[in-house]
């Protein structure tokens, strides 16, 4: 079973995403950017896609994207940013840092799929 990584400091948001994918994928969860980096360090080769919140404690989503770029894994794992921040500046930064797509909260599961 392939793996998906969900990174969000909101338990509700992690569960909303987990529900969508858990029948077909193993869903890994991280509460913040630091946990996400720890999971990527161990298991990046098995993660097929990542859903990433931007505003988090310890390490932000943009910091995680920068880490993935430095570690040369940003091209190997598509990152979908899921954010409540709708600003052009944030969008541009996310894409510049390597995000594959952006979805805005509150999201509908149909949009995520």
């Amino acid at each position: 079973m392939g793996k998906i990584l969900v990174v969000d400091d909101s338990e509700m948001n992690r569960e909303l995403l987990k529900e969508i994918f858990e029948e077909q994928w193993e869903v890994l969860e991280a509460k913040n950017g630091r946990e996400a980096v720890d999971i990527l360090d161990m298991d990046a080769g098995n993660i097929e896609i990542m859903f990433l919140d931007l505003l988090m404690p310890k390490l932000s989503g943009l910091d995680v994207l920068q880490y993935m770029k430095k570690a040369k894994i940003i091209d190997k794992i598509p990152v979908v940013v899921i954010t409540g921040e709708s600003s052009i500046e944030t969008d541009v930064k996310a894409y510049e840092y390597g995000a594959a797509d952006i979805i805005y909260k509150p999201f509908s599961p149909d949009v995520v799929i």
Partner: protein
Amino acid sequence: MTVKEMYGEIGGDYEDVLIRLKNDERIIKYLGFFLRDGSFEKLGRHLAQKNVEAAFREAHNLKGVSANLAFSNLTKVSSAITEMLRDGKDFEGACESYPQLSAEYKKTVEGINMMLG
């Protein structure tokens, strides 16, 4: 009290949440997540400690979980406080608005608890 009636009482948008969560069973599941969330309490603590960045994150989180459940009134107030706290723009304004947020949050929680019985 039905879920729909509860939404009417607390100033939420039942039709909106139903589009995203599909049925009352799932709405009730995520109401549980809302009650456990903790962002409101953390926001109050961070405002009292004048920790602007942490307060901003918690206001943003509260806005997010409220919007997920289409709690329109609560989303509106928490969104306003989020913007006041962004980059420390208006910390005093955020503190002044906190009682209004608190009233809206308590109304929402009471409505949920009454519905859940």
